[in-house]
């Protein structure tokens, strides 16, 4: 028991707490589209990447402040989401999934190939930790406080949104589109708002990701990451607010014991991804009838 407490207060514990806060923002915002709206949004990691790169570039090359970086990251992601939503949200779910998948593929191709801006696979090193109101966040403990506050604010905003009229009509549209539309719910606008808000929070998470690691490269924003966040939402039961929080804690901490096993790092990465994919498949298999309720039609 004392051993547990030692781990939790050590640097390693702080690192884990920061990861949990980061994934709370990411997963809960994906839950808004995939869970509540049943929109199969595969562009979440692309927004995450856009936010991360925006912050990295602004703070290294223009030494912009924390507020500016976060604001630009969020609004850039929201702008991309509005654009992408305008293209693909007017179509059926299959097309939305393909459209968002294509968007994330374009983003990752740009991250690797647009070398003059993103430095390609080399990534961007030396991203400074932020300073705000005269407090610096170089220390991981301080940084945990910052990201923790933002994670709590995010959860609060999303919780309010879930229970707002907008969230309720999003849920209604997912369950029975025609009935909701006939009651005067604006289909396109509701979904656009959800997608936009979801991506904006992904941008916020991306911003914190680059501040925390001080170094980003395209490999952090691949499909494996998307599978991981999707697994969190599916395990936590799509559309359930508390479920996703629990699943985030569970899944972020689950592969950590693998670290202490004597496995070479070439196997460790694939093994974590394999674990996530197996969990994803297992949960979908187990709960296949109640995960997404069958869309009702007249």
């Amino acid at each position, binding site marked *: 028991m004392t051993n547990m407490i030692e781990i939790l207060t050590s640097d390693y514990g702080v690192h884990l707490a920061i990861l949990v806060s980061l994934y709370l923002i990411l997963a809960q915002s994906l839950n808004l589209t995939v869970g509540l709206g049943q929109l199969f949004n595969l562009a979440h990691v692309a927004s995450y990447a856009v936010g991360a790169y925006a912050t990295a570039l602004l703070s290294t090359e223009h030494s912009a402040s924390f507020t500016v970086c976060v604001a630009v990251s969020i609004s850039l992601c929201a702008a991309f989401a509005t654009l992408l939503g305008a293209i693909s949200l007017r179509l059926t779910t299959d097309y939305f999934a393909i459209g968002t998948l*294509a968007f994330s593929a374009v983003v990752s191709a740009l991250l690797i190939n647009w070398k003059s801006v993103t430095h390609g696979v080399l990534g961007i090193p030396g991203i400074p930790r932020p300073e705000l109101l005269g407090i610096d966040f170089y220390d991981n403990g301080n940084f945990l406080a910052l990201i923790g506050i933002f994670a709590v604010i995010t959860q609060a905003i999303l919780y309010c949104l879930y229970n707002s009229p907008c969230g309720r009509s999003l849920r209604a549209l997912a369950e029975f589109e025609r009935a909701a539309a006939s009651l005067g719910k604006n289909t396109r606008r509701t979904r656009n708002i959800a997608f936009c808000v979801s991506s904006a929070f992904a941008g916020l998470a991306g911003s914190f990701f680059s501040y925390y690691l001080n170094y980003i490269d395209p490999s952090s924003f691949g*499909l494996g990451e998307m599978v991981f966040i999707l697994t969190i939402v599916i395990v936590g039961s799509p559309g359930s607010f508390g479920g996703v929080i629990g699943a985030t804690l569970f899944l972020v901490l689950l592969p950590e014991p693998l670290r202490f096993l004597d496995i070479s790092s070439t196997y460790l990465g694939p093994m974590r991804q394999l674990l996530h*994919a197996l969990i994803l498949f297992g949960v979908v298999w187990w709960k296949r009838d109640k995960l*997404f309720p069958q*869309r009702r039609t007249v």
Partner: protein
Amino acid sequence: MLSILPQLLVNSLITGSIYALASAGLALTYSLLRILNFAHGHIMMLGAYCFLLFYGQLELSFPTAVLYSTLCMMAVGFVMLRIFILPFVQSSTLLPFITTIALGTILECAVSMIFGVNVRSFPSSASSNSMEVRGVYITPFQCAIVVSALLILGTLAFLVHQTSLGRKVRAIAENRSAAESLGISVTLITYGVCILGTLLGAYAGILVGYETNIQPTMGSSYSIKAFAAMVLGGLGNIWGTVLGAYILGLIENLSIGLDFWGYSLPAGYKDAFAFLVILGVLLLRPHGLFGTRSRAT
């Protein structure tokens, strides 16, 4: 600038042939089950690695390696359909997409743990010296790719449109429950068609291995390209998809081969262009270049 055009067109034909073989199977599966199989590109990758194992590493003779790879991929196709797709088709259209993403990741991780993440290529036995025809360079193997693609797709067209089996397939695509009530063995035909699609995908993967090289992470990029071909041709429209695949090959090659106002794009952007095509089509012609507006399912 225009002198390079014939070469680009030939290259597009070669790339397009591979894409057409890869996406035909995906379109067949979509037309029968209305699901997006994300693992299709990973099936291509697995097919190529299967062949690499039997032919390159165990050094079996070419026909034996082909036979074993075919049997292996048939088994993989069966397992994929039985475990990862069919149990979820009734519940929601999203679920098979999620499970095939999981399957794709599982295959990718398994292959990279067994074979390593490095780029591999096949031991090339075919002569790689290229022929020159009117300033266009092409290797005998590339000719074989184009000819075999035309032969296979031609046979497929004959099967689908001229035989009673093909009529049953089209009937199921049109209306599954009506076809079932008329006594067509829907399950058997679904299995047959999906395993055929798996084999086509695996063949395309082997061609990729001979033409360029293979690595475990290639799967998702080929899946998205096959989706691009499907979106170009209209979801569920098999011949639209095949044509879409050739158009995709053309767009990719022209985008990096031609220079635009003295500025040419680096080769790395080839993929980005293919993916931009999807977004462009969704914006301008959401039901595909050759698609009709969605019909009731």
